[in-house]
């Protein structure tokens, strides 16, 4: 029995690490109404990796990672710059366009590669059960650093997410703060997506944030709720995956969907926010 527990300890640890940072970032993302920004940044990172391979670098080497990171930061700068104050073009539209174009560009580049196209396709898929201890530890270290930055600047970052107009009146440089937000966000997504895949990253980001919105007003309670929900769904989802012997990542995503459905039904039945 201990054997079984040990086999799934690291994937589970990875989920907890991901819950910790993504459930928090999700609150920002939901508030900013940039739901698909993680898909978009992950796709930009994948484009960077494919260009690195085209330039003759090893996909799993540090050079390719720097390409991914560089592209992600360019994407972050672009999103910070295009957040329009006049709201004539919705940010979500820009994000969608960037996603589609970078995915298409990656396909065009992969077509030019003599080999490795298959490996590139795996970037977006991830493989939770195959996560290694060193990946989890690196992830935890990096996310702790980003988490500390966000904690240190929490008042400012929350203000520019929630009420950019007020932040501007108070003299904030919105573009700079937006870049800080998207830059750190992109850094995290670039690391999470190859490990657990884009579907899981998206779910951990959005579902706890949306569920918390249903029940709580203060950021503090939302965050605690989102963390609790992420951790609980991780346990239940892995349990179901084990019980049904179904693909683990997909099972967890569906568990998130089911949990959100139950919570929304509960709210409809028992009234409004606490």
């Amino acid at each position, binding site marked *: 029995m201990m054997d*079984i527990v040990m086999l799934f300890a690291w994937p589970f640890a990875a989920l907890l690490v991901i819950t910790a940072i993504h459930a928090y970032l999700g609150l920002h993302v939901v508030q900013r109404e940039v739901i698909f920004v993680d898909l978009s940044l992950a796709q930009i990172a994948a484009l960077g990796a494919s260009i690195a391979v085209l330039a003759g670098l090893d996909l799993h080497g540090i050079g390719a990672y720097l390409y991914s990171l560089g592209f992600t930061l360019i994407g972050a700068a672009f999103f910070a710059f295009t957040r329009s104050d006049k709201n004539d073009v919705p940010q979500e539209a820009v994000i969608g366009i960037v996603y589609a174009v970078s995915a298409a560009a990656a396909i065009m580049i992969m077509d030019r590669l003599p080999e490795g196209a298959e490996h590139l396709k795996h970037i977006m898929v991830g493989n939770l059960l195959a996560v290694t201890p060193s990946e989890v530890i690196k992830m935890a270290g990096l996310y702790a650093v980003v988490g500390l930055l966000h904690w240190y600047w929490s008042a400012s970052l929350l203000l520019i997410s929630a009420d950019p107009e007020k932040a501007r009146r108070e003299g904030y440089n919105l573009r700079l703060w937006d870049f800080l937000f998207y830059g750190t966000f992109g850094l995290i997504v670039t690391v999470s997506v190859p490990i657990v895949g884009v579907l899981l990253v998206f779910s951990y980001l959005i579902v706890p944030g949306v569920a918390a919105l249903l029940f709580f007003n203060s950021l503090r309670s939302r965050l605690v709720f989102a963390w609790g929900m992420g951790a609980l769904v991780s346990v239940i989802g892995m349990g179901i995956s084990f019980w049904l012997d179904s693909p683990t990542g997909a099972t967890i995503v569906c568990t998130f969907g089911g949990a959100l459905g139950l919570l929304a039904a509960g709210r409809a039945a028992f009234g409004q926010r606490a």
Partner: protein
Amino acid sequence: MKTLFLGSVLLALNSPVFAALRIVTTTEDLAALAREVGGKHVKVESIAKGYQDPHFVDAKPSYLLKLKRADLFIQVGLELESSWAPNLLRSARNKGIRPGARGFLDASTGCDVLDKNITADRSQGDVHPEGNPHYWLDPANGRIIAENIAGRLSELDPDHAGDYRSNLAVFETRLKKKAAEWGELTQAFKGSKVVTNHNSWPNFAKTFHLNVIDFVEPKPGIPASPSHIKNLINRIRREKITLIFMEPYFDEKLPKKIASDTGAKLLILPPSVGAVKDIKTYFDLFDHNLNLLSGALGGKR
């Protein structure tokens, strides 16, 4: 079903003596060969099902448990399973079956592997630098794989080495007889020109003297360009090619369209044991596919 699965897992983990060697293979072709050689001394399970694309496998918890308990892991190699097998092996925490250990077998050792070291020429399709991993589709390679497995089983379980040797001999005798039958059956369409969806049949084509002149989609997953499709259609018409064949797990839309534009026939050939219900053994695999081919190509040249 689920309780049965859990029950068998717990049983296997708890029973102190488990006589049979536990073999886990990446594909059902290797599993079928391991069963031929191992006979009653082994319990064989495959991770990828025959109807799945072995390039991509979504990890399930049972895979880790199977690998954890395995005495022998057998892979096709040549990067066929490189997107998932190495990671799963690492996660399974079973030192006995890690690469380099005695419980790890790469079945390609000694096989006739085609398309090795092709240089960066896109017309050759999605290149596996170590060679094309679909080598099990040549019965001569099937024999070498069986020998590899028999050799390793004898090392792991010397008490039954005699049985493994005699199982191998029985398999080889039968394979020789069947290979002669297959050769006769394919005489009628020797040298036929065909088009395949991807470059996954070079060993099969070489063995049965088919001439694969081009592919519908040179790179799996990357849509073929309009000029490639146009040239392909022209070539199929010009050279009067009557057959396009492909695996069951790829999208048949484009091959179907090309077939209907040119009047060629599109045939779905399963590349693996277990891909359809009646392919249960390595022999069934060739029987099934060669019968289909024979029906489609008939006596035409």
